């Protein structure tokens, strides 16, 4: 009633125009169960575990804000032929993530120094019972298949640490082939 601009009824016509335009433009609805959604390439769907890389350092379990990662391990003696004494190695017995607690912050993925945890875009793992959301390391390992390859390195950025080290080694091949802590240009990366 308080419309002051132009002819009476322009508001009514505008309303009709809006609905007509919406009708003729394509709807954005995704027919999800029939058509798989087009997710962004690095979607954070679920956390996948590459168990071979895990050294049971427990960093992820300790950093997890809601303590949803459960790790058990035991030590194993590995007799290396030619070595002075057998070495000890951590063997991963259990690596569970409780996805009913997980809040998908991704700190565990960030904090893992050995690249054992990855984001996978897989998201269809709903369960009927909340207990079934506790996934063990075999299940977490199955999701590794859907992890996308790591993004390409920025062409104009600094080279990766590993690359720089390799380049330096190649430039000075005389120093040492064995990476022992000691005098040498290759040691600065690990000694700090």
């Amino acid at each position, binding site marked *: 009633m308080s419309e002051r601009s132009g002819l009476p009824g322009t508001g*009514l016509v505008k*309303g*009709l125009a*809006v*609905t*007509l335009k*919406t*009708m003729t433009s394509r*709807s*954005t*609805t995704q*027919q999800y169960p029939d058509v798989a959604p087009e997710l962004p390439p690095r979607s954070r769907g679920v956390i996948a575990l590459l168990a071979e890389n895990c050294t049971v350092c427990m960093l992820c379990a300790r950093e997890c804000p809601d303590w949803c990662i459960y790790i058990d391990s035991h030590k194993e003696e590995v007799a290396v032929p030619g070595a002075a004494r057998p070495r000890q190695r951590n063997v991963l017995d259990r690596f569970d993530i409780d996805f009913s607690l997980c809040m998908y912050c991704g700190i565990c993925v960030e904090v893992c120094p050995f690249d054992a945890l990855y984001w996978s875009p897989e998201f269809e793992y709903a369960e009927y019972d909340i207990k079934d959301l506790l996934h063990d390391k075999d299940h977490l390992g199955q999701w590794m298949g859907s992890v996308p390859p790591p993004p390409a390195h920025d062409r104009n950025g600094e080279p990766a640490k590993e690359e720089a080290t390799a380049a330096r080694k190649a430039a000075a091949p005389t120093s040492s082939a064995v990476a022992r802590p000691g005098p040498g240009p290759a040691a600065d990366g690990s000694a700090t």
Partner: protein
Amino acid sequence: MPTWLELVVRVGGVLVAFLTLPLVVGQAEHKVMAHMQGRLGPMYAGGFHGWAQLIADGVKFVQKEDITPREADRPVFRLAPVVALVPYLLVLLVIPLGPDDLVGQPLDIGLFFVLAVVGVGVVAVLMSAWASANKYSLLGGLRGAAQLLGYELPLVLAAASVAMAAGTLSLGGIVEAWRPWWLLWQAPAMIVFFVAGLAEIRRPPFDMPVADSELVFGYMTEYTGLRFAFFLLAEYVGIVVIAALTTVLFLGGWQGPFADAQLGWLWTLVKVFAVSFVIIWLRVSYPRLREDQLQRLCWLVLVPVALAQLVLTAAVRLAL
């Protein structure tokens, strides 16, 4: 053709139209409304773009429990949906689809009959509202009564204008007398008739008696199952009836660009569906009017315009 066979064919034809056209309009409403709101609407029932959605709805309604509230006035409560539905069926009987008697029952006072029968709708509203023993239903019913009685007047006045122009009350006769320049001459009457018709079938933006967000569902609150389905069907048949009446009275019925004698039925159907689309379009675009705005629109806008149109029609008729 013997008389009884002709009778069966005609009544059967009207019955088929009565059962299919509302479903087509209803499905169109589902899809058009969805797309106007940036959705897809039903996509599963029947496979292709949910074409069988209303059939599935009907099956669902049949399976539901038929509840009559304890305090309800049982016979009246049970009769009301039928009273809502039957008048529209009777109206479809006299609406001409094409030339040469392509009509359920040609009637010389067709327009009079149609307006009288459409007016029965208010009785169904009051019956269901009072018999439900529910305060929301009663409020909705009283709103409905006020609205239907108020809008009956501009509806009749606008229809009288076109009847005066054509010099006949027969719907077929009106279509025959219709000329394209009437689109301009009778435009105010057409708008008044269309708006009043919208209010008459209680479509948004004139759905105060139903008003699901404030009165739950008005006079339909207590209805379940098949009886509720009857009310819904009555709403869709109402769209078809108002669209068909607007077509016949103001848009020239079966008169089309060519081949009126053979393709008249097609022109009528095309126009009916076009007007139905506009009815759906208005529903999606506009919010519900307030009760006082509704009465104001009726008495201060539609009735004066309809009266002015009557004067204009009379003047032009006398001058010609």
